[in-house]
């Protein structure tokens, strides 16, 4: 009897357990995919379309969602937990779904010119102490910045060296030197950036950052630009004894001399009259060649598309041709010589 009761108890316990689990178990054909790092689940099973049509749509979706969520929650509850500030917290694994990055990965900063040089020479950075003994104030002071030790900007008297002009303002000289150092440093910084980004530094003539060894032509250009950059556009600038006139400066208009070779002038006038007199339009070779090329292009294009469109286009073109030529001969060609005459 005792044995029987034990069996009963066991069976009952088993049943209870099963019933308990019943409320949280969900059966699916295919297992779900989980990515617990993102609290993500993916149910590959095709939803039952027949049921979807028959049943209330919302109820169907809700029950589907419930089942899937139950599975996801079951999975999350299996994770190791710990207690933080009276709250039970589950440790999430790393997300497994690969998602695109927002920005490309950072690149290491390219070394500056100095860093390159230092590496080549094996120069290593030395740590300097922050505090330095100040002899004047008899105390330890910071090496840099406000209230620094041995501050040479705060001196009220500077000895004038023997070699320099006694009237020169030594204070102003110091300030100017400092400003120049700062400017140079800034320039170098920008140059380093430009070098890192592989930008060719633009500039007219001698750019603010010349290349290390400017070529002869570059220097010549720079000299030319500098000369012209005056209020009177370089009109009163002196020349060096053996300086040559610059090449390719870009003279815009050229005129014939006023008095001189009469025969060429006569020939020119006659040519103009000849063109004006002739009934035939003058042939502009470049224009004609361009037209011909375009025509061929169009033809080949239309051939590729359709055979039919070809004929009409060609006809159109020939009509334009006559018109265009006549007009160019009258207005375009006559204008040029007339202007020249006026200038004279």
């Amino acid at each position: 009897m005792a044995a029987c009761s034990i069996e009963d108890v066991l069976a009952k316990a088993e049943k209870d357990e099963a019933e308990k689990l019943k409320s949280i178990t969900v059966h699916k054909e295919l297992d779900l995919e989980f990515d617990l790092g993102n609290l993500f689940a993916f149910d590959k099973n095709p939803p039952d379309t027949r049921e979807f049509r028959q049943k209330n749509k919302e109820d169907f979706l809700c029950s589907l969602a419930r089942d899937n969520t139950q599975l996801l929650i079951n999975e999350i509850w299996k994770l190791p937990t710990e207690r933080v500030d009276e709250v039970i917290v589950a440790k999430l694994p790393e997300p497994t779904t690969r998602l695109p990055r927002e920005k490309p990965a950072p690149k290491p900063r390219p070394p500056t010119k100095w860093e390159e040089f230092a590496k080549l020479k094996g120069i290593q950075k030395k740590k300097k102490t922050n505090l330095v003994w100040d002899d004047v104030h008899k105390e330890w002071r910071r090496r840099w910045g406000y209230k620094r030790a041995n501050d040479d900007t705060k001196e009220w008297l500077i000895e004038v060296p023997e070699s320099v002009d006694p009237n020169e303002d030594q204070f102003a000289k110091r300030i100017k030197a400092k400003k120049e150092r700062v400017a140079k440093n800034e320039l170098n910084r920008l140059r380093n950036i430009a070098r890192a980004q592989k930008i060719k530094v633009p500039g007219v003539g001698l750019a603010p950052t010349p290349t290390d060894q400017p070529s002869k032509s570059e220097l010549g250009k720079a000299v030319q630009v500098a000369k012209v950059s005056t209020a009177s556009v370089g009109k009163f600038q002196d020349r060096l004894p053996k300086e040559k006139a610059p090449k390719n400066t870009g003279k815009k208009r050229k005129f014939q001399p006023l008095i001189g070779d009469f025969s060429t002038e006569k020939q020119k006038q006659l040519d103009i009259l000849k063109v004006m007199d002739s009934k035939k339009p003058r042939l502009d070779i470049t224009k004609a060649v361009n037209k011909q090329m375009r025509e061929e292009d169009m033809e080949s294009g239309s051939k590729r598309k359709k055979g039919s469109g070809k004929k009409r286009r060609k006809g159109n073109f020939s009509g334009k041709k006559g018109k265009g030529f006549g007009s160019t001969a009258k207005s375009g060609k006559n204008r040029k010589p007339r202007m020249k005459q006026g200038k004279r």
Partner: protein
Amino acid sequence: MTQLDGVVKPKTKRSKRFLQSREPKLIENVKNAMLIKGGNTSETVTQALKDIYALKKPNAVLYKKKNITRPFEDQTSLEFFSKKSDCSLFLFGSHNKKRPNNLIFGRMFDFHVLDMIELGIEKFTSLKEIKRSTCPEGTKPLLVFAGEAFDMDNEYKRLRSILTDFFRGPTVPSVRLAGLEHLLHFTALEGKIYMRSYKVLLKKSGCRTPRIELEEMGPSFDFVMRRTHLASDDLYKTAHRQPKALKPKKKKNISHDAFGTKFGRLHMQKQDLEKLQTRRPDLRTK
């Protein structure tokens, strides 16, 4: 020389910090989303944008004014907005006769559009309409996708990736179990995508794992897919590239067999027998 593009030297510490927060990083910031209202929007679209903004809130920007752009035709203004507000996810809402109630989900890589998918709203229930239950702002949602289309179809696959990216929120090392309150469920069924948002109720089940009950919370959408713009494979691959520093380092001289047993060689020092604890130490000295 002074106008070097893309090189800005911060003048104050504060601006330096700001610029640093936007720099590309090894472990990236949480992706921000910008919700952009198009040139013309219907009430549905406006409300939908507002509701999604409410779901995304700490990591989102809502552009409430009209923005007359068409992302599928010209992406420059989107790219500009993305750069301005440092957002790599976007949702663009518009409404016109040809494409009524239109939402475009998309994401950027390096401030250029990576992929975007246009979804038309067929049916929409707002967050306001269902007043029963709400979630605290910034709750990390459970994301569940259902339907074989999300696995088979290329565009649906990409949509799944975009939606996961859009709604997943920050990556966290751990999560409060009682705080799993919000569920976003996407179902692909008969050519439509049903997005439902539920509040999760954890009920006692008698064992450790709770039983789940759901309560509809809103917003809920019935979407149809319209135009898509997917990134080329090349760009997609570049966007997924993991930096070298983040890849797990391979450990030397350790191997595993088929059953997952770990093999390695141990190097031990010679045991000092003098210090050996025996039951009767005096015996050793004799």
